[in-house]
């Protein structure tokens, strides 16, 4: 069994190597374009890389930089926010995201205390999910072992109990974080400075306001080519054209 697994791992690594090399080459080429000032070309290359190879934090970050150089703060913030889902503690990413938000005057509206917010955002929702799932599985495995063999006596018993308590704490804290951040699934970013929130899902409907490029909004139902949006921190809510707003997490991403 073990030799078979080793063989499978080797096969996967070797089979993946050409793809990885191609991705690195494409990234290098896009970075060269960026370095020569061809930000639009670089953005196209990064976009292509994301389409062909899937979401990578480094590519999303570089894409955000390209858009920021082009003063397109909406797409830049969108790319940074996507990258933040994967690498929430990357200092470069956080610095450039802050720059983009400042330039676009699109600040995050947080209703929680800054300390709690920093704690919740220290890990991505994916990481919190893995913590919860891991802790739950650990407790399950512990239950199986304890059930089958009985809790070991003396020396190991306190250690096992401490591990179970820690897993329980991780489970509770992770579940709480996921609950507090539950509305992030439907977040979107306004792409254009002239993007308008309309009263009804029609092109000629009354404009209720312009949230501004890079503004984070909550997405609701779809109607034709329009999405219902709510701008947090304001009373602005209505319909926005699909081309003017993009969900941070899209289906199949």
């Amino acid at each position: 069994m073990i030799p078979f697994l080793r063989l499978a791992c080797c096969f996967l690594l070797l089979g993946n190597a050409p793809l990885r090399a191609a991705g690195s080459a494409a990234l290098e080429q896009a970075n060269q374009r960026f370095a020569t000032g061809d930000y639009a070309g670089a953005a196209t290359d990064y976009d292509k890389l994301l389409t062909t190879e899937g979401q990578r934090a480094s590519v999303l970050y570089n894409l955000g930089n390209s858009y920021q150089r082009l003063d397109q703060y909406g797409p830049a913030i969108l790319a940074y926010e996507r990258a933040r889902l994967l690498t929430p503690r990357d200092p470069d990413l956080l610095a450039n995201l802050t720059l983009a938000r400042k330039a676009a005057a699109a600040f995050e509206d947080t209703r929680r205390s800054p300390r709690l917010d920093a704690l919740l955002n220290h890990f991505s929702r994916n990481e919190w999910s893995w913590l919860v799932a891991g802790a739950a599985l650990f407790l399950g495995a512990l239950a199986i072992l304890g059930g089958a063999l009985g809790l070991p006596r003396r020396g190991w018993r306190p250690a096992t109990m401490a591990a179970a308590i820690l897993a329980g704490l991780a489970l509770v804290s992770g579940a709480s974080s996921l609950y507090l951040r539950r509305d992030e699934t439907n977040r979107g970013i306004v792409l254009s400075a002239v993007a308008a929130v309309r009263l009804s899902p029609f092109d000629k409907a009354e404009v209720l306001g312009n949230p501004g490029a890079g503004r984070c909004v909550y997405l609701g139902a779809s109607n034709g080519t329009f999405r219902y949006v709510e701008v947090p921190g304001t009373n602005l809510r209505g319909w926005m054209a699909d081309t003017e707003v993009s969900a941070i997490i899209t289906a199949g991403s």
Partner: protein
Amino acid sequence: MAGIFFTSGLANHAAAAAVDATLDRASVPAGNGALLTLNITGSKVGQIDLPEVENLIIQGRDQSRQIQMNNGQTSVSLTCSYAVGSNTPGVYQIPPIRVSVDGQNLATKPLTLKVLDAAAVQPPAAAGAPPPAEEAPDTSGKRFGFLTVELLIKDRNYLYVGEIAPVGIRAWLPEESRAQLRSVIQPEGKAFTLHNVSERPQQGTEIKDGKRYTVVTWYGGISATKAGKYPASLSLDATVAVRDTSAPKARRRNGGPFDDPFFDSVMDRFNTPMIQKDVTLKSEDEEIEVRPLPTAGRPDGFTGAVGDFKFETWEIPPSWKTGEPQQISASLGGSGNFTLLGCPTLTPPDAWKSYPAKGDLTPRDAAAFSGSKNFKFNAVARKGGKQDVSLSFSFFDPAAGTYKSLTTPPKSITVSGTDLIEPQSNITTAAKKPAPPKDPLVGQHTALSPTVSLVPLVARPAFTRMLGLAALLCVLGSVLAWLRRRRSDPKRLARAAMETATGEALQAAARCAEKSDVAGFFEAARRAIQVRLGVLWNQPAAAITLAEISARIPAASPITSFFREADLTTYGRHTAADMLPQWQTLLTEALASLTPSTR
């Protein structure tokens, strides 16, 4: 009489019980009347005790009641109007009118009314007021009132971007109307922002276009962020009740002491119905010009402050040590946009490193237009020795239309320690060239990170499956633990051993019965019963004898009978093998009777 009562929290507060009476004139011709107004404030208004004066007629006309709720406290304002007159000339003293309010007996001040000889005087006119005229229906759309906005800047009818200009906002409400505010004043467009509108408006009466209004005035600041010409449209939601002058007039009286044109107008005023409507009072779209701040001559340290400011005080410790931070405080006073007033900077700038300041504004007026802002900040001296230090800052003066930079008189300080060497002070020939501005954007990532889905695990079906698996493992673990505990249960183990021993003894008894070995049969059968009783009674099987069985089990029990037969056979040498089937039956009954009740 201005009958306007504001019930919003801005304009009024719950009042204590009070009674007040006024006459609208001091004298009237005989046969005419004056208007007596009785204002009562309180939560419970009782009987009004009107005095009786010989030859003086007091006739009730109108009554209006306002109920206000403030912080859960109910307050009632009752206004009663009376026509007072006499056909006999003379000076009449109206004694105090007594009213019970909130359980207190209150009284008005006594009033005096002089009734003149009708032939000797001209028809009266209302004191200080234009003669009441028939009002034509108002078709201007301002029947329920309107707002006006006035820039309170001397010698200017424009303002600059970022400037907070003082404005007076006036609500013009028709006389004899009642208004209740339903909102605060708010700008209709996005061009202007209102700041610090006064909470307690001023109230007065003014005539505009020949019409008398009650004018309520607020003061505040207005600012704009973009240059251009914009209408200063403000709005205020209110419920306004005005008299319906278009309603048909009541029938005139014929005869009697009050058959007089004055009384007719009084009657008309009181008999005219009120129309109440929820309206939005709006200002006329008067445009205000907003000018951009000039780019020419803009100082380097300009932070956007627009107004007129000056240094009031500043303090700096006299002794410093290089590299050690100390606190500096400064107070800037004046009027203008304090929000954008930044902290003054230390000069010479290369000798200091300053940290972000904390500024507290102390307003000097209700609109926080003028005041003083106190800054406190930490700084580190970079250079040692004696130094002259001053503070400087710049602002835009909208009155002069120019930027101004102010510097405090220098103060001498002593800095001990050596000069701090900054990394950039390691001057080389190349470094002397002006460095390009630092790019704030952090550079590209060159390493290819792994491909990961943006959808977090929590939003994927795998998460539910994992939690389900964990729950299943917990359930399985619990089941396994139960099974394990059950398997090692000593009672269960003892019972199993008993069953085994009983079975073996019974098999031995059966074998002995087949061989007609009576003694062997009884020995084996007795052992089987002893084993079973030993488990039930929790004592060694060998210790159970007929005596103990007789003491604990009734004599008619098959167990007792079987033991008795066994003892007879064993000790009496009674070996009749033909009795074996009966003893086997007795043994079966004895074993069957070994239920928990035999304990």
